[in-house]
């Protein structure tokens, strides 16, 4: 009788031992999850700040000798985003192998905000949508061998979809700048194209469908601005640059 009771207390450690491993495993997972959530918040904040910076730079009157003021703004944006890339480089081991998809829900919000900021800078420099591969390249070490964090099509598209909102702000805020009216018309066409392109992809990505509604609203806002420009200038039979000059003079006088 004593003997069996001893056996019983020997059997117990097996379960305990087993669950010890599980505990370590779960704690490890939760700790990593926490680290990624915190890092993702930092990345989101840095990216948002970059977007504000880009708006600020885009609004400044360019120096007279500046051939491509957008490029200058973009450079400063890229510079600031290097901080984000640094964070990702440090996270590499947390996101290696199958871990990216395991923690995707924690990582995506920051990643999408980063792509939004990066694509904004890219648009200011080139006037185009940043290609998938180029986004990927910014998340690699300098030799272009190791990917800090894998890029999913969904994150890429959702980040770009947010870009249209920033472009709307950029276009409308810039209207009072010299050349801003022409820029607004350009952005209007660009965003209209984006919306059409995303339309065909949206059945595949749940969140993109929702974001398309926001894009449609942004587009309408730009269209309304472009309309206001057109309707007002149509009263005068003068080329737009001349109109700009007349207005500028009446203010600076």
């Amino acid at each position, binding site marked *: 009788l004593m003997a069996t009771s001893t056996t019983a207390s020997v059997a117990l450690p097996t379960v305990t031992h087993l669950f010890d491993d599980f505990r370590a495993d779960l704690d490890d997972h939760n700790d990593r999850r926490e680290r990624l959530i915190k890092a993702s918040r930092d990345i989101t904040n840095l990216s948002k700040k970059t977007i504000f910076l880009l708006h600020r730079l885009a609004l400044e009157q360019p120096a007279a000798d500046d051939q491509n003021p957008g490029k200058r703004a973009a450079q400063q944006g890229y510079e600031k985003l290097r901080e984000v890339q640094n964070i990702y480089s440090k996270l590499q081991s947390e996101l290696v192998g199958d871990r990216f998809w395991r923690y995707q829900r924690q990582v995506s919000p920051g990643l999408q905000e980063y792509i939004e900021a990066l694509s904004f800078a890219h648009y200011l420099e080139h006037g185009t949508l940043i290609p998938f591969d180029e986004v990927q390249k910014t998340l690699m070490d300098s030799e272009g061998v190791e990917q800090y964090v894998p890029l999913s099509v969904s994150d890429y598209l959702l980040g770009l979809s947010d870009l249209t909102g920033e472009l709307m702000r950029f276009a409308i805020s810039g209207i009072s700048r010299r050349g801003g009216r022409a820029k607004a018309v350009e952005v209007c066409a660009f965003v*209209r194209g984006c919306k059409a392109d995303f*339309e*065909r992809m949206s059945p595949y990505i749940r969140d993109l469908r929702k974001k398309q509604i926001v894009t449609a609203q942004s587009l309408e806002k730009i*269209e309304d601005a472009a*309309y206001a420009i057109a309707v007002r200038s*149509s009263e005068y039979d003068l080329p737009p640059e001349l109109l700009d000059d007349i207005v500028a003079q009446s203010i600076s006088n």
Partner: protein
Amino acid sequence: KMDSDQVEKINGLLERDVELRENIKDQVNELDKKTRTMVGLLNKIHSTPPDALPALLESVRPTLLSCRDVTGALSTIIPPNQFWRWKDMWSNSMRTAVFAAALIEYLSNRALLSLSQAAELLGIKEEFSDRMTLPVEDYLHSLISLVNELSRLAVNAVTLGNFEEPIRISMFVKDLFAGFSMLNLKNDTLRRRYDSLKYDIKKIEEVVYDVSLRKLASPSPRPS
């Protein structure tokens, strides 16, 4: 006791429905692709000058007509009498298709696509009626989408220098709205969307105002 005959029979019924749903879903995906293509192309009306419009509309027509493949397939797949059972699966896509058809009709002929024309264009035949038909609610939803789109077009036409378009749109939309206001809509989505039409009308009126104030075009007086 639920004997195995019963179980088998019931399982047969349940599984037939599962399979049916799969088949319908495939067709709806097909229809969805078509409507998205059409919407993508029709999006260009906002930046297309009047003379290039016919060619643009022409480029959409083949896709529109190809929707007949889907309605035909659905009319074969849906069991007799079960139209109303499954229709929620495709109403959204179908409404978009009818919207596209109505937009093309307006831009081509300045005319309102009728319910029967819409059904005909999309290949929904009278004889399908217990498996595939175009309910009046869906048709009306499409017309509301048409007004939403035309109010945007009124704006963009002016941007493109086409000052007559808003005036034509204004007349068309007001007639349509008068028609709608004679309908006895109950308190549902359709009613809410109809109520929102007044914002579109206001927007169009403001465009007409801007254009006529500046004498860029003048609305012809009409008999009230």
